[in-house]
C-alpha cells in the first residue's frame, strides 16, 4: 500500500514541499547583490510586502476581483452554453468542437491573440468598435479596460470548461422529474430553477471550488496581456511575486510574497472545502 504512493510522495516532497521550506528560509534573508553572506534579517521582507501599497491596495484587490469575476462570469456563461447545447439543433457538433479550442490552446497564445485583436491601432476588434461608432478605449493603456480584458480572456478560456462538465451532468440527469414537471404544466423557467438547478448543484459547487483555487494563481494571461501594467495597476499576486524576484531582483521579497500567497490560499482553500462539504450535505 505504501509502495503504491511512495514514488508520487517522493516527487511531491522533493520538488514541492522542500522547495516551499527553502523559499520560506530565503524570505528571511537579505538577497542584495553586495551581500554574498545572505544575512538573516528576520521578518523584514514580510513587513515590506505587507506595508507595500502596491501589494495592499492593488495586488490583493485585483487578485480577488479576478478570482470572483472570472468564476462567476464563466460559470454563468458556461451554464448558459450548456443549456443551449443540451437541445439538439443543426450544427451542434460544430459548436461542441469549437468550444474545446480555448481549453486546448495555451493561455499564452490566447493572451497573444487577444492582445493583437485589441491592439490600439491595428487590432481587428478595436477597429470594428470604432467603425461601429464606439468611443475610443485605451484597451491596454488604462487600468480598467486592461483589467476587464484580462477577465474577458479568463472567461473565454474557462467558460467552455464549465460547459463541458455541466453538459455531462445535464445528460446524466434522470428523466422522471422533468416528465412530472411537464405533466404539471410547469413553465420553462420554473422547471429550470426548481428542478435543473438543484440537481446540478453538487457539480457546480465542485467546479467552482476547483476553479476558484486555480483562478487565484493566474499568471500567464496577465503577464502576456499587460505585464502587470500600466504602472503595476493590473498586477495580480503571482505577477507581483515574479516581478519582485526577477525584475526588481529582490529575491527575498518575492519569496515572502509567494509565501504569503500560499498562506492566504491555504486558509481560503480549507474554508472553501468546509463550505463545500456543508453545501453538499444540505443538498443531499
Amino acid at each position, binding site marked *: 500500500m505504501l509502495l503504491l504512493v511512495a514514488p508520487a510522495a517522493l516527487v511531491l516532497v522533493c520538488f514541492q514541499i522542500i522547495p516551499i521550506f527553502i523559499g520560506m528560509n530565503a524570505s528571511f534573508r537579505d538577497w542584495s547583490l553586495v551581500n554574498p553572506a545572505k544575512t538573516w534579517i528576520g521578518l523584514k521582507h514580510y513587513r515590506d510586502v505587507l506595508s507595500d501599497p502596491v501589494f495592499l491596495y492593488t495586488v490583493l484587490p485585483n487578485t480577488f476581483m479576478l478570482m470572483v469575476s472570472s468564476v462567476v462570469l464563466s460559470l454563468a456563461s458556461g451554464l448558459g452554453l450548456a443549456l443551449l447545447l443540451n437541445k439538439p439543433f443543426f450544427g451542434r457538433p460544430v459548436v461542441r468542437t469549437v468550444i474545446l479550442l480555448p481549453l486546448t490552446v495555451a493561455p499564452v497564445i490566447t493572451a497573444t491573440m487577444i492582445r493583437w485583436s485589441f491592439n490600439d491601432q491595428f487590432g481587428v476588434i478595436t477597429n470594428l468598435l470604432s467603425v461601429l461608432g464606439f468611443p475610443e478605449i485605451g484597451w491596454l493603456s488604462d487600468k480598467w479596460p486592461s483589467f476587464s480584458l484580462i477577465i474577458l480572456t479568463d472567461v473565454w478560456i474557462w467558460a467552455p470548461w464549465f460547459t*463541458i462538465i455541466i453538459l455531462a451532468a445535464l445528460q446524466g440527469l434522470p428523466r422522471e422529474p422533468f416528465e412530472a414537471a411537464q405533466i404539471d404544466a410547469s413553465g420553462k423557467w420554473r422547471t429550470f430553477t426548481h428542478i435543473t438547478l438543484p440537481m446540478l448543484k453538487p457539480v457546480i459547487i465542485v467546479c467552482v471550488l476547483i476553479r476558484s483555487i486555480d483562478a487565484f*494563481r493566474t499568471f500567464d494571461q496577465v503577464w502576456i496581456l499587460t505585464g502587470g501594467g500600466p504602472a503595476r495597476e493590473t498586477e495580480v499576486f503571482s505577477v507581483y511575486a515574479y516581478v519582485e524576484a526577477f525584475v526588481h531582483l529582490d529575491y527575498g521579497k518575492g519569496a515572502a510574497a*509567494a509565501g504569503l500567497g500560499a498562506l492566504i490560499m491555504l486558509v481560503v482553500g480549507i474554508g472553501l472545502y468546509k463550505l463545500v462539504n456543508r453545501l453538499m450535505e444540505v443538498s443531499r
Partner: protein
Amino acid sequence: MTVEPFTLPIARPGPTMFERFAPGAWRVFIGLVIVAVLMIFIAPVAILIVTSIRPASGIYYIWRGTEFTLQNYVEVLQQPQILHAMFNSFVMATLATVVSLGVTVGSGYMLSRFTGRIQKTWFATIYVFRTVPYISFVLPLYLVTTNLRIYDTYLGLLLPHIAVHVCFFSWLMKGFFDSINPSMEHAALIDGCTRWGAFRRVALPSAMPGIAALSILSWLWTWNEFLFALILTGQRTPMITSTMAQFVTETGTEWNLMSATAVLAMLPALLVTIFGQKYVIRGLRM
C-alpha cells in the same frame, strides 16, 4: 363491447406573449445566439491565422488587401531557436506525461481502494498542496535547480512538472478507479490472483480509457505550460511558450512573425481539438 383506451391528457403551458405575437422568433433568436457563440470562440484564432499568412506590409488592417504569403512561416522556421524550442517542448511534454502517469496511477489506485490513516493523510496532503499557488514553489525551485546544477536542463523542468501533476492526477486517477466496480478484482483475488496481479490485470485495463484521455490532456498542459518554463529555463533549453512570450513582450512589433510562431505553437492543440475531442471531453469530465 370495447372500452376506449384512456390516456391522461398532458397539460401544457399556454403560449407565451412572445410566441403568440412573433411565432418562430424564439428560434431565430437561438440561431443568432449560436452564431454569436461560434464567432466569439473562432474569431481570435481566425484573426491570428490570417495575420500569420499576411506579408509584413499587410498585417495592418488584416481584413483588407489580398496578398497572402507563407514567407512568415519560412522565416520563423529558419530561426534555430524556434525549432529548438518546439523540439524541447515536445520532448518535455512526452516525458512529463509518461512519468507522471506512471507515478500517479498507483497513488490513485491506493486512494480509491484502501482506507485507513495513510490513505486519509495522503488525500489531505494532495488536497492541501493542490491549493498552493505555483509561484510559491517555482520561485524557490529556481534556487534548488541552480544549486543542483540542473537549472535550464530537461531534468530541472521535468521534476517540478511531475511534482505539480502528482496532486491533480492522483485525484483524477482516484476518480477513474472509483468508477470501476471492485467486485471484479475480488473475483480475481479469489481465483488466485495476487493483489498486484488484480491491479495490473483487472483494474488497470478497465481504467485505460480514462488514463488515455488524461494522457492527452497532460501532454497538452505540459506543452502549454508557461510559468515553469519562464522561471526554470533559459537560453540552453528554451520552451516554445517562453520563447513566444519573449517575442510578444520584448520585441512586440513584428506581429506577422509572432502570429506564425503562435500558430505553430497552437498546432498540437488544433489537432487534438479536431481529432481527439472525444478524449478531451472524457478527460475534462472527470
